[in-house]
């Protein structure tokens, strides 16, 4: 009974994670602009890796000779690192693209750096 519940949890977290990973890659391919692509890729990838790692932890913890503490420590470290590193890397990359005048989408309606909103 417990095995069945854990398997259903594994399948649910796998579908959750793979949905976000696929949407991140699809948005990276389809969106028109560096900033749009960054918006799709970073958030989707963070949630997708979290879902896949939780699914892997539950799946590996069911084995007979599983070192559960080791697995859970690795999973928690990876998820925490993803949640810290992805926003930082995305922010650095967006600042670099802005400094290097990356081409923007034609539908952009305002650039608040050069035309600041008046108060």
């Amino acid at each position: 009974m417990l095995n069945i519940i854990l398997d259903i949890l594994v399948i649910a977290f796998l579908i959750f994670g793979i949905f976000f990973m696929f949407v991140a890659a699809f948005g990276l391919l389809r969106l028109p602009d560096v900033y749009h692509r960054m918006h799709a890729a970073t958030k989707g990838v963070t949630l997708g890796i979290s879902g896949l790692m939780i699914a892997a932890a539950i799946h590996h913890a069911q084995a007979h000779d599983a070192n559960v503490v080791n697995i859970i420590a690795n999973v928690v470290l990876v998820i925490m690192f993803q949640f810290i590193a992805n926003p930082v890397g995305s922010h650095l990359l967006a600042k670099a693209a802005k400094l290097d005048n990356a081409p923007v989408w034609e539908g952009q309606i305002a650039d608040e750096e050069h035309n600041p909103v008046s108060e």
Partner: protein
Amino acid sequence: MLNLLLASATAGHEVAHEAAEHGLLDGVVTFTIDICIVMIAVGMLMCVIRLLKSPHLADRALASDTLGVELIGMVILLGMRFMTSAFIDGVLILSLLSFAGTVAMAQYIARPHLRHKQVKSNEKLEDLA
């Protein structure tokens, strides 16, 4: 390396056969993992297409970062498919390397502009002095 992979794969299949006698949903889980591996492969293909044709260097840096994270997902899924928890240890190293590459690319793109700004501010300081 190949021998190690083959040994782990065969060992994983034996363990999978043992576990198939216990669990009711093991076939469903294996099928879901296979579908997930295919979808990750399609996502990696999309990242490679964006890496090959993109208008700016920041696009390529972003695509390579996303490709690295999709590779992490692939490693996790292959570890689940082969029923070995040894691949979990490599995931942290892969994510660290991917983050370091992204930071290095961002610094490489932004460095000329930053140096320009610094020179400007130094000139301003000299003018003030």
